[in-house]
């Protein structure tokens, strides 16, 4: 793709990727003008057929594009986002018996507020297949792709194969709107898989077994993030409506059991520490600009529900109590997540786990559609506007993603780090300069030494919550807990600044920490990508 096209897509992304409703309305206005302008000439005779063809083709392309991008990302050892490396690192630390949630005043600064399963899943995969970045990324891609299969099976509950394929394709297109968030190493792919599996089992017709499996999958979802229960509201509404309160209680009991299992079973997963970090995170309040963005995204993602409802004649529309309950639960869940995801650092991607549920309800609406009976005439142009909007935003997001990853894949930091570690005795760690991209390969060393002291994204969050680096961390630096720090070449060690607006540009590492670091370390050489800072301890006073 030429630089001009890429530049145009990036400009479009910055301007419109966060405004899907606005963009959709603009495109709809253009389509309506075209329809009015061509009404007499009859260039487009049947907007409904046009919409069906465009949606089907787009869905099929998305169904090829999504797995391709997911597998491509999983097969490259570089990360896109600076918050991804911590997932495999903490997963591995869990595997070797280190705490998933260190104490608030502990020297190790890597605690995040994700639930234990978000890390344990990586720990299990890395323990089984070996500690590499590729294994961790493969887990995310597998979960994303498996959720798409479940989404197809969910659609099949109500519609025939061809329509289910198109609906799964539309789900893939909507997932691509969120760049790589549905197959990265953070909890979203696991959430997607858990919610689609939970709904799939809830919609089974067999006895109480479906409720048991649905509850177990819901338990994973509850555990992954504190907002988990909101995603399961529609699932439980379906269970209750179709199988009664006994199935609901059974599922809820299994969900509680599975959600609490890691805290009860593993010594290195501490419930009090997890709660302490959660409480701290709850003190940050909300960002109103993010709230508006979340709302816009929620409205946009729910448009297919309205469109599919009016796509069939009135006599064929769902009106059962089960349908009403599931829909009401979905609205409640989406509303809750829209507000909860307005915390600094969160955003519309928290809505991703609702996509399989939306597809399921859309399929439900289309269950009794007939090629002979037509629905509302306005459905075709609005559907076209919806899909065109999704295509534009997904293209812009993926262009940025692929361009960045291509640039990253030209680097060989991993080899550089490994070569240095092979040649030196003692603990080596990747540190931070003023930028972060050259620090993304830090799992390589955490896997090797089973230790991890500083996670900059975690420190950024902690600072937002009003928590400074404790004395124990500075002491660990001065006492040479790490013998060699690899700092991106030419950058001042630990000179990053916070990007959250409430603490904008505040140094992430306090002056005292940096002073101690510079007193206890000196540059002893360079590698291709890093300055090597060796620890010799604090000078005697």
């Amino acid at each position: 793709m030429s630089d001009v096209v890429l530049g145009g897509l990036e400009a479009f992304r910055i301007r419109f990727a966060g405004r899907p409703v606005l963009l959709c309305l603009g495109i709809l206005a253009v389509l309506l003008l075209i329809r009015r302008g061509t009404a007499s000439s009859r260039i487009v005779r049947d907007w409904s057929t046009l919409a069906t063809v465009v949606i089907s083709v787009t869905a099929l392309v998305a169904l090829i594009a999504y797995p391709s991008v997911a597998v491509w990302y999983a097969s490259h050892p570089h990360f896109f986002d600076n918050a991804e490396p911590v997932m495999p690192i903490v997963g591995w630390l869990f595997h070797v018996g280190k705490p998933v949630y260190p104490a608030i005043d502990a020297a190790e600064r890597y605690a995040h507020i994700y639930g234990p399963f978000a890390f344990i899943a990586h720990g299990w995969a890395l323990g089984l297949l070996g500690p590499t970045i590729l294994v961790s990324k493969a887990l995310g891609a597998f979960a994303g792709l498996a959720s798409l299969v479940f989404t197809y099976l969910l659609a099949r509950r109500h519609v025939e194969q061809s329509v289910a394929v198109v609906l799964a394709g539309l789900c893939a297109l909507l997932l691509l709107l969120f760049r790589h968030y549905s197959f990265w190493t953070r909890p979203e792919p696991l959430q997607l898989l858990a919610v689609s599996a939970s709904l799939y089992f809830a919609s089974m017709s067999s006895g109480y077994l479906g409720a048991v499996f649905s509850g177990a999958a819901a338990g994973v979802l509850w555990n992954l993030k504190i907002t988990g229960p909101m995603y399961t509201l529609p699932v439980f509404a379906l269970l209750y409506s179709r199988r009664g309160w006994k199935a609901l209680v059974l599922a809820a009991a299994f969900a509680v059991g599975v959600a609490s299992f890691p805290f009860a079973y593993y010594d290195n997963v501490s419930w009090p520490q997890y709660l302490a970090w959660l409480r701290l995170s709850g003190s940050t309040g909300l960002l109103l600009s993010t709230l508006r963005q979340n709302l816009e995204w929620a409205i946009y993602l729910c448009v297919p529900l309205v469109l599919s409802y009016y796509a069939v004649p009135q006599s064929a529309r769902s009106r059962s109590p089960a349908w009403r309950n599931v829909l009401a639960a979905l609205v409640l869940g989406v509303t809750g997540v829209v507000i909860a995801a307005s915390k600094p650092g969160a955003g519309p991607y928290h809505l991703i786990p609702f996509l399989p549920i939306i597809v399921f309800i859309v399929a439900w609406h289309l269950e009794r559609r007939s090629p002979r009976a037509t629905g509302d005439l306005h459905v075709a142009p609005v559907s076209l506007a919806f899909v065109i909007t999704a295509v534009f935003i997904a293209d812009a997001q993926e262009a940025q993603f692929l361009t960045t990853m291509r640039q990253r894949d030209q680097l060989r930091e991993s080899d550089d780090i490994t070569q240095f570690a092979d040649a030196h005795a003692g603990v080596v760690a990747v540190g931070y300069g003023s930028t972060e991209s050259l620090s993304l390969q830090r799992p390589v060393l955490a896997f090797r030494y089973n230790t991890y002291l500083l996670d900059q994204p975690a420190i950024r969050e902690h600072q937002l919550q009003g928590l400074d680096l404790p004395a124990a961390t500075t002491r660990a630096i001065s006492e040479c807990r790490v013998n060699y720090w690899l700092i991106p070449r030419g950058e001042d060690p630990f000179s990053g600044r916070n990007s959250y607006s409430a603490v904008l540009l505040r140094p992430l590492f306090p002056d005292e920490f940096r002073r101690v670091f510079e007193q206890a370390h000196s540059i002893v050489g360079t590698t291709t990508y890093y300055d090597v800072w060796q620890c010799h301890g604090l000078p005697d006073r």
Partner: protein
Amino acid sequence: MNEQHDVIRRGLGAIWWILFPCFVLLVIRLSSERTCSDPYDLLPALASNPLWGWPIAIVYVASHLWLIGVYLLTASCSDSLAPSRARFRNLWQTDYMKILLMLIAFVVEYLPVTLWRLLGTALHCVR
């Protein structure tokens, strides 16, 4: 319109009396922020305090839900994805004015930030 729709319609009409004044106040405050302060970090002192942030978010989201509810109810009663203005007027009768006032508040809230910044520059209040 069946009885259930009528109950929802009357409910939305009643909720408006609580929601609209709060939403208008919020829109005025947000607009002044967009005009004179950081348009991307709105009401930071209030929003960053959970005690204020959550109620503000609830009012903001509830207002959106109110308008969506009005649309969905009208669409359902008129069996059309795009009900006409006459249909809105017929269905909501005296409450139609409430919808118009809420719509005006929404138009103000969704005006482009650029316009607010231009206004801020003209008023010499941009901080």
